[in-house]
């Protein structure tokens, strides 16, 4: 087979294959298939976990919170001293108890007097 023969044969074969009309329906469906395939390019790709915004924000927030806690409770222990009310309460409670006992004693005395009288 010479090159010219082969070329002629191939040209004829190409024309024969190209001559077939697939029809409007197939052409339309192929167009739709192409559009559907190309539409994938408009959809943002799923990001990997390490690419998501919260993946960066979360550790930064956690570190900031740790620094805050560290500063508040460890580096700065000078909290204002709380007043000690314990002794005053005890004193008040003791006074109250004495008064109560006195009242009870007075009430008993009165009762005795009434009984005697």
């Amino acid at each position: 087979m010479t090159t010219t023969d082969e070329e002629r044969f191939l040209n004829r074969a190409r024309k024969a294959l190209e001559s077939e009309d697939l029809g409007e329906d197939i052409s339309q469906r192929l167009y739709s298939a192409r559009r559907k395939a190309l539409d994938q390019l408009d959809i943002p790709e799923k990001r990997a976990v390490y690419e998501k915004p919260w993946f960066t924000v979360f550790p930064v927030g956690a570190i900031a919170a740790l620094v805050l806690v560290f500063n508040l409770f460890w580096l700065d222990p000078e909290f204002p001293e709380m007043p000690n009310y314990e002794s005053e309460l005890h004193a008040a409670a003791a006074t109250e108890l004495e008064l109560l006992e006195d009242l009870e004693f007075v009430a008993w005395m009165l009762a005795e007097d009434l009984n005697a009288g």
Partner: protein
Amino acid sequence: MTDTTALNQFLAGVEKRAFAMAMFKVKDTEEAMDIVQDTMMMLVKKYATKPQEQWPPLFYRILQNRINDTYRKHSMRARFFSIFTHDHDEDRDADPIQNAPASYSAEPDFQVGMQGATAALKQALELLSPRQHQAFLLRAWEGLSVAATARAMQCSQGSVKTHYFRAIQSLREELKDDWI
């Protein structure tokens, strides 16, 4: 960055031939359409960012793989059902693609309109082995280089040349009465 316009033009340029190639093999409009759509989806999804000159061999590699998958599925189904009719011990280990029969019944509407040279060529193409068929369509119809055809067929360039040469010989032999 993907050049959507270039990709659209590329797909528009190959879609009809791709459909015809799938149709040659599977003989079913719906399945051929599914094959082409899957091929387009896969190309866009996986290889849209590749250089444009790589698209044709990649597209046809995906297409041929999908065609072969569908063809194998058909063969397996046919073999499964044939168990109930008669035994095929000697065919059991054969590669369904390499030894596939030339055709199974084509849809009537696909055969309508096949006249003259086109009909004769298509009948001759049916007689080629699947690899010869692929090599001929990719080289002669699609115009891929030997190297690109080899990438699409996932074989060596030497194999492409052999398949292509045998395909042309076979076609010329079959078509000589009609074409010469």
